[in-house]
């Protein structure tokens, strides 16, 4: 009985949404209002024309997320920090020693192939993540993407080499200092704009010449990207450590 009610109400929602979707502007149409924008005030033509010279990056999307809509990215790094704090609120921070059963010290059974491949690949994965962070301005990539790759590398390390070994390599007291680095760097860079007379998160100032402005904008973008990458990597590693639980066998 309950299933029938649920299915009927979902069917009504589905019909309503289909009715809406069929009336949306055609997909792929280069003249639609999302691409062209309202006449004279279209955001997308403005970003595509003036993005490179106003923000200093050739990747327009990085320009948008760090410069034009930087406040949203500020909120996003706060969201991921909130997730970390939330996980710490539910599960306390990890302890120094967790006893696994004698059978296995690490979640992955010992295997020569896995150990060797992981040992060889890990440095390259870290270098790749650094490449993705630093080249976010001129190609696809960016701060958060690179940070996630670095965190994935750290998680492989923890899975393969065991909890006790890894907690020695990434000690908790050292990680606490770096978790909040992304929102704090954003706020610090944003406040620079306040001191130079314009609004928050401004990277181009009328006091300086155009080339100096470009240098300032590019370097601030780079600092923020590295901070987002490093902060994101530390946050994911900390979340993974906090989720380790004692073996109850």
């Amino acid at each position, binding site marked *: 009985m309950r299933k029938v009610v649920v299915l009927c109400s979902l069917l009504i929602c589905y019909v*309503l949404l289909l*009715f*809406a*979707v*069929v*009336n*949306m*502007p055609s997909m792929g149409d280069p003249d639609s*209002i*999302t*691409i*062209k*924008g*309202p006449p004279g*005030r*279209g*955001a*997308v033509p*403005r*970003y595509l024309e003036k993005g490179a010279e106003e923000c200093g990056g050739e990747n327009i999307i990085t320009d948008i997320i760090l*410069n*034009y*809509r*930087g*406040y*949203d990215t500020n*909120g*996003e790094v*706060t*969201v991921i*920090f*909130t*997730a970390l*704090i*939330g*996980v*710490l*609120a*539910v599960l*306390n*921070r990890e302890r120094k020693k967790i006893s696994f059963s004698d059978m296995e010290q690490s979640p992955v059974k010992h295997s020569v192939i896995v150990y060797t491949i992981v040992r060889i690949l890990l440095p390259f994965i870290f270098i790749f993540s650094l490449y993705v962070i630093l080249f976010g301005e001129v190609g696809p990539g960016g701060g958060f993407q690179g940070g996630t790759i670095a965190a994935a590398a750290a998680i492989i390390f923890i899975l393969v080499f065991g909890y006790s070994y890894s907690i020695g390599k990434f000690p908790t*007291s050292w990680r*606490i*200092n770096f*978790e*909040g680095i992304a*929102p*704090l760097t954003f*706020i610090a860079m*944003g406040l620079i*704009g*306040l*001191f130079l*007379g*314009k*609004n*928050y*998160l*401004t*990277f181009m100032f009328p006091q300086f010449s155009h080339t100096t402005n470009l240098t300032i904008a590019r370097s601030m973008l780079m600092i923020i990207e590295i901070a987002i990458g490093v902060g994101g990597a530390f946050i994911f590693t900390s979340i993974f450590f906090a989720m380790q639980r004692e073996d109850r066998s």
Partner: protein
Amino acid sequence: MNITHHFPILLDMVPIAAACTMLIIGKFRREWCYYWALFAISICTVMSAGLVWEVYKTGPISYVVGSWERWFGIEIYFDHISACTLLISGLGLLIIIFSKHYIAKEIDERKIPVYYSLILLNLAGMLGFVITGDLFNLFVMMEILSLSGYALVAIGEERIAQLAAFKYLVLGAVSSLSILMAIGFLYSITGSLNMHEIALYLPRAKDHIPVAIAAFALFIMGFSVKAALFPLHIWLPDAHSIAPSPVSALLSGLVVKIGICGLLRLLFIYRYVGGLINVEPVLNIIAWLAAITIVMGAFFAVFQDDIKMMLAYSTVSNIGYIFLGLCLVQSNALIGGIVHIFNHAIIKVLLFLCAGAIIYQTGCRRLSDLHGVGRKMPITMACMSIGVLSIVGIPPTNGFICKWFIAIGAMDAKKPLFAAALLFGALFIFAYYIKILNAAYFKKPRAEFEKRDEAPMTMLVPIVLLAIACLALGVGAYFPLAFIKPAAKSLLSTAIR
């Protein structure tokens, strides 16, 4: 650099910066976390007071982040609805003051820096939500406050806390995704994410009107879950009664109002589309759901024995009042509804903090265990009595003003059934609050309640301040009304007809 010009953005960034450094401070000494949080929220209260005064004198403030323009940057728009920031930071300050002793006793001491960090993030999310003028920024701020809300409910150690938090999380996440989809629909037909621009260009999208209707429906569904309107209120009683008392005060008093502020912003966006969409039937349905919520919430509250469960159901009922006030498109009811947002926040925070003080001192939550507690904690029970009288709506407390306005509005709009629902709800509320007062004062006290043993000073001061505020706002109702009447009139003049 004129710092007052930058108050809108600093209002949001100060709590976030304080929350991010809270863990590092907690590493050194746990006691400093309380003072750091207090410092941050006091700065926010001062800034929001300054901003509200400025808006009252000169009108809405617009601040574009990054010194760009409104149509391609993110705008912060501080208007009359954003006067909620004063309410949010003021009540947040009192809740943090109250938490000093309560949290030290109630939760694991390793989690204390995490608790203060979550409270600051929640307040930052709420402040960001009410001041922003950009739709996607609204979504991001809503996620900050939702995630910290889920974590705050789950911070206790009992197993039922995690279950309540999970139910809250699933429902909250579904509503956030509905809102995200609705923002997508609105972007596809107007090409802009700024609320002013969307309001201007929505009437031009005449061929795509069904998309706007679907977006409206999805928005209402999303915000109704956040604001706990029947039948989407099922997450509220468990979550608000299981959480620690200052957290319950925060959630019941402020976070549910965010859903309503979201709906006000929605009406703001759709204000020029009145000729194309007929929203009368939708508002009618919501008004009926609100009336059901009023009666049902009050009805269930009568049969509860646990104080906090009773207060949680009473929140559900009062949210129904606010929705009823907003959906009868009539000036008196609208004023009553908006004033009730403020008054209910103050009253509910007062009641939950009193309940928290009682639980802290006696360790009992059930009414049947609390006979005669009025002798043990006279000041707390006196303030709770003032809160009780306010929520029933007896003059000269502030609860009377809003209920009176909503009832007059219902009669003026020729819908006497709604006024009857209001009366029933008030009668039920009266019944269960008489239960509380009876148990506290007139039943034979237990042995340990004979001695006077009041709550600590840091818990008493916020309670007494809030009780005084209830009486003051009831007697001197002119001041908030003078502020809210122009806002309500502007909302109504461009209202959807």
